[in-house]
């Protein structure tokens, strides 16, 4: 057991993966000498050398495109995109090449590449530094998406993502980088693509990933004082979605609220709402409700608190669900 902030749990996970398999390489902007703008790769260049912790030229398409070539040559690159909003120069390489090459190769090759993306708001930063672009990638067959919310998951999920033989996009809740948690260093608690119950409850299921899980837990605490018991699910895997625990929880509570920082239109939350409605229609006592960012560009920092769903916005939806 070790008590680590999420950022350092990822560092430790990367270090473990690199120690275990010398084909694992890190690539990205400022990740070597500086240790990354969030210091997630701090110390790794000193330990593994500049060939395995590469300060690349400043070109996101170049990073992902060359990572693909390295993977075709037997390496297992882990790429850091400096901030969520800067992934788009690599969009073409991710969607037309990385996501599809395994299919094109018809069994003659696969792409074990991890793309680490510090994502989400709550940090008061300038434009392009607070976004949640998950849905673009979840929409693309051939990719897998995960997002940890705890230090323990961060430590294990980054290693499991690196062990995956298929591309995994790893969304890191940057606002929670410095939130500490117990990390059990011996065995992983869960498989990579599993949704877990973060807090048991009776009346309404609330579901989210990454930093949102912390908001949901806060909401559950507030609700309890009003006699409402929320079951909090930590989605963990955004693609594929692990529906069994979600359906099991909904069959108990009859109510589901899905929360996310991203805009709600064509989002992960929309997808879950649709599927749960299809598959658990007779268990539901209320429509599945979504709590999302608004369908506007992420606002200037002074307005982010109004844009990002907080515990009160979650509870407002919980009240509506209970009113049915």
């Amino acid at each position, binding site marked *: 057991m070790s008590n680590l902030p999420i950022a350092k749990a990822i560092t430790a996970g990367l270090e473990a993966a690199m120690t275990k398999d010398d084909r694992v390489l890190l690539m990205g902007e400022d990740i070597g000498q500086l240790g990354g703008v969030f210091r997630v790769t701090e110390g790794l260049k000193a330990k593994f050398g500049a060939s395995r912790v590469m300060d690349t030229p400043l070109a996101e398409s170049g990073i992902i*495109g060359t990572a693909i070539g390295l993977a075709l040559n037997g390496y297992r690159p882990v790429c850091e995109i400096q901030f969520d909003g800067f992934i788009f120069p690599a969009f073409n390489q991710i969607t037309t*090449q990385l996501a599809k090459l395994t299919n094109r190769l018809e069994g*003659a090759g696969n792409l074990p590449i991890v793309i680490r993306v510090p994502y989400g708001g709550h940090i008061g930063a300038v434009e392009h530094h607070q976004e949640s672009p998950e849905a673009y990638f979840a929409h693309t067959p051939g990719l897998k998406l995960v997002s940890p919310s705890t230090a323990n998951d961060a430590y294990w999920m980054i290693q499991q993502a690196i062990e995956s033989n298929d591309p995994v996009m790893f969304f890191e809740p940057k606002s929670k980088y410095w939130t500490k948690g117990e990390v059990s260093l011996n065995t992983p608690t869960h498989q990579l693509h599993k949704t877990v119950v973060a807090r048991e409850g009776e009346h309404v299921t609330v579901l989210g990933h990454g930093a949102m899980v912390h908001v949901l837990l806060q909401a559950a605490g507030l609700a309890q004082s009003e006699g409402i018991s929320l079951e909090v699910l930590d989605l963990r895997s955004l693609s594929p979605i692990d529906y069994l625990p979600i359906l099991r929880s909904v069959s108990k509570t009859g109510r589901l609220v899905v929360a996310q920082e991203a805009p709600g239109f064509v989002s992960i939350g929309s997808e879950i709402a649709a599927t749960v409605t299809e598959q658990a229609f007779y268990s539901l006592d209320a429509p599945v409700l979504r709590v999302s960012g608004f369908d506007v560009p992420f606002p200037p920092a002074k307005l982010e608190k109004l844009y990002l769903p907080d515990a009160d916005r979650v509870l407002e939806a919980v009240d509506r669900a209970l009113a049915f």
Partner: protein
Amino acid sequence: MEYPEPLSVLDAQGNYDPNRAPAELRPYLDELGLDKLKQFFADMYITRVFDKDASNLQRQGQLGLWIPSQGQEAVQVAAAYASRPDDYIFPAYREHAIARIRGIDPFDILRWLRGNTHGGWDPKKHNFHIYTVVIGAHALHATGYAMGINLDREKDPSVDKAVMVFYGDGATSQGDTNEAMIFAASYKTPQVFVVQNNQWAISVPVTVQSKTPIYLRAQGFGIPSWQIDGNDVMVSYALAKHALNSARNGGGPQFIEAVTYRQGAHTSSDDPTKYEDPEMRAEWLEKDPIKRLEIYLRAQGVEEEFFTALDAEAKEYAAGIRARLIALGAPETSTMFRNVYSEYHPVTEAQEKWLADYEASFEVEI
């Protein structure tokens, strides 16, 4: 601005003059005995006969699309023979001559353009990647692959493989090809960039892509570069070999602009009469790569017999591919769901099963 003519040793009239090549290319030109040149000729000729027949197959409704390589065979055959079998090649989508020499059955290219597959072959078996349709995207894959060779070399200094990547004049405008050169220069990759400047990106002339000769741009990235007559198989071979050797011996990336001409349409869907100047076309047909090598070989005493036998061989070869293509059915429905991921995935598995059950529901029970 006046720029020098592309490097050439075998002119359009079939005259060979090695003295026109710089000294460092001479040893490679000296490798080119008559047997080797006859082999080059045979590969160029067979590819062209196959290529023409593929165009016919498209007109006859057997292919959704054809991408002719006609006119560009010399630099392709030269580069293929200049490379070692363990050098890894990333083609664009017009490199049929290289594919054949690398052991790809051209039937597999046709399977792709008939709509049976998005790939066609196992790249590792041939050290020849599958074709990439998104212009320029594979240039980065080539550089990444070459970065991997450098890492291999750190563990085993005897590793001396190189990478070759092919793309067109239009592709030089893409960010990815430029980023590929930046990464290549930065990591000093063992890699040769080959741009086949065939004068056109569909209907857009090369002058829209670049106001300077394309090879000069590479020098701005710190990459040594040359411009050659890509219809001259001899200079193409010599330079490709020289560049590959420089790359594999620690010289870092190298860049070749092969000036050539796309004699056919961009693809079977294209209509060059809308944009191509007939005079320009006629001039370029005079510079045909196969014609000039034939003149040279005949002057060297190669007998008519060689040419007639080769023609018969090429036609038989193309006919064999044609017959197999016509007999080719549609792929299994389930292949759509396969290899989307290399590991188990609940969504593709469920959808594959759903479609199979749905299809089966239409089967009449007897």
